[in-house]
């Protein structure tokens, strides 16, 4: 009996300490959790800070605005209520690629609940894009599909008969359909953004309220200052203000509309038409399978404001590289 009592005594003494040690071993993660909680709280505080504006009444010649110091957390913390904006961007290797992706990433870093789907026109995912995406900190999906050579644009002529980026956008649509099943309650908006356009931050907030398909004006397309949908007094789209074939079913640029994710998922056969598409009809090839003109929702103050510009970047002059290449080819640009 004494022996048993001894053992019991030993056990009773040792047991709490062993439990404590195991628990403390797990708690090596506790400080990390504490930091994580702090980060989240900080983010919310600072995101609110951006709304405060202070204007200095100053003399008319020099206008100066001094704001309270705040730094955006990059990217903004994820919200459980905002619908996610899935941005589909096809990209391909050329000298300005890294520059374009860098500045468009700087834009996206301001938008909350953004999911960037970047599809490369290549056989394999390039390390340039892989490391760029990782360093931005954005929420992203990196895909790739190579356009067969007979579809590719010859040289750098913008031949509208061969639509660039079609296979890449279709791959993204397929990925979305495979990832999000129809019964999923996650609200989302799908937007096709090219990597050389310019976007204002207001645009992303306008498109978040899309129920089916929303539209807005786009600058510098169709050889005009801007192309725009025609909106009647009832707030419905009845036509297109465009010169280049205004009788297209949807005379709109890729950057001029956004689609609700539910609509994409409910019509799994809707894709961009790959072959036999006339110049300027690519957008119509997808949209006509999704909506009618009547269902379109005009945004940007009933299509009176420009929130996206179809800018194009000049091809850089590389004459001084010569035949063999003057600069170090290992330097990533």
């Amino acid at each position, binding site marked *: 009996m004494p022996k048993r009592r001894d053992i019991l005594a030993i056990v009773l003494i040792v047991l709490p300490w062993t439990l404590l040690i195991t628990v403390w071993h797990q708690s090596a993660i506790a400080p990390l959790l504490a930091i994580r909680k702090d*980060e989240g709280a900080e983010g919310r505080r600072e995101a609110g800070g951006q709304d405060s504006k202070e204007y200095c009444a100053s003399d008319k010649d020099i206008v100066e605005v001094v704001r309270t110091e705040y730094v955006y957390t990059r990217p903004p913390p994820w919200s459980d209520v905002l619908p996610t904006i899935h941005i589909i961007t096809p990209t391909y290797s050329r000298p300005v690629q890294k520059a374009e992706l860098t500045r468009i990433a700087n834009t996206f870093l301001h938008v909350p609940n953004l999911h960037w789907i970047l599809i490369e026109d290549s056989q394999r995912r390039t390390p340039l894009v892989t490391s760029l995406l990782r360093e931005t900190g954005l929420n992203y999906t990196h895909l790739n599909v190579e356009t067969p050579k007979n579809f590719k644009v010859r040289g750098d002529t913008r031949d509208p008969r061969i639509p660039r980026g079609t296979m890449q956008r279709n791959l993204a649509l397929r990925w979305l359909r495979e990832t999000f099943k129809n019964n999923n309650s996650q609200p989302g908006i799908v937007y096709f953004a090219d990597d050389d356009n310019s976007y204002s931050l207001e645009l992303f907030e306008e498109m978040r309220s899309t129920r089916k398909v929303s539209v807005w004006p786009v600058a510098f397309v169709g050889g005009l200052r801007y192309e725009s949908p025609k909106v009647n007094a009832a707030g419905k789209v009845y036509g297109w203000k465009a010169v280049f074939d205004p009788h297209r079913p949807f005379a709109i640029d890729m950057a001029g509309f956004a689609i609700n994710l539910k609509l994409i998922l409910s019509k799994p056969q809707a894709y961009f038409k790959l072959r036999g598409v006339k110049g300027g009809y690519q957008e119509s090839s997808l949209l006509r399978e999704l909506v009618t003109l009547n269902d379109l929702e005009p945004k940007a103050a009933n299509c009176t404001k420009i929130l996206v510009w179809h800018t194009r970047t000049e091809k850089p002059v590389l004459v001084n590289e010569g035949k063999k290449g003057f600069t170090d080819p290992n330097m990533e640009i």
Partner: protein
Amino acid sequence: MLGEVSSISNLLEEEIATMAARMKLKLKTVFVLYFMVSLMGLIYALMQLGQQCDCAEHDLPKDRAISRLQEELYRLQGQIRQLEKAKQPEKKQPPKSSLSTIFVITPTYARLVQKAELTRLSQTFLHVPQLHWILVEDSPRKTSLVSNFLMKSGLTYTHLNIPTAKERKLQEGDPSWLKPRGVEQRNEGLRWLREDRKTEPGDNGQQGVVYFADDDNTYSLQLFEEMRSTQRVSVWPVGLVGGMKFESPVVEGGKVVRFHTGWRPSRPFPMDMAGFAVSLRLVLANPDACFDGEAPMGFLESSLLKGLVTVDELEPKADNCTKVLVWHTRTEKPKMKREEALQVQGLGSDPAVE
């Protein structure tokens, strides 16, 4: 072994018993007390980590949120590490409470893509703390487009304007390299900066870096952190300029020895406007240093820098000038054939829409 342990436990028991006897307590009570205390401690420790246990039962969105926040944390930690590495060891430590301000001087002029360029440039600048944007319009009057844009931008800014003299201006058909552009505007920015700093006495007001940024280039965020530690003039590679993939200073032993460029390497400072930054102190110490509009093509940067530093004193950044953090992109002029055709008919698109 067990015998030894049991003997030890017996000894312990005896000791505790004597102590208890002294305090007139039963042994059992002591044991119970000890057990309770250790149990309390354990429960308290578990509570501290309680969140982790609860997480296992949370639904998926919260989990995803946490993993994303975790990614952010790792990324931020990585960034902090990068920043520490980028900082140069200084003898005089700047005040740790505030970062030195980066004054960005950007000349701009009205053209179709102006608002688009300024919009995406401002989106980059919004990520940079302590940045003061000095935007100088090439115009006799401040335009409402730029004024309204700056007000809504959310940046700390100064809006200036100065028109370029007619003979210095590029005409419609001129190629962009014919005459130097933005000279008066940049000089105006420097002049304003010097005036403004006079009203801010004390050492803190002299801290800062001046950078000349054109509105169509592309800047990575890391660039601004690299230039913050400029003591005199810092330099780095620029992509897509000079007819090459990139132009760069060549660094040996931490010093710039020559320049890697394909065009006129005999210039005193053969680099692009976007490839260097000047410390505010140096700008204020040389009140006459400005850009010379009469300088031959490509010598604009040299006209400013030769009065400020020698090649020997240049500070190389971007990992000893091995990384490209800024690109000299240019935006195409949008084709307006149809617009022009429409305007002839009197049906041009509403000019009131910006």
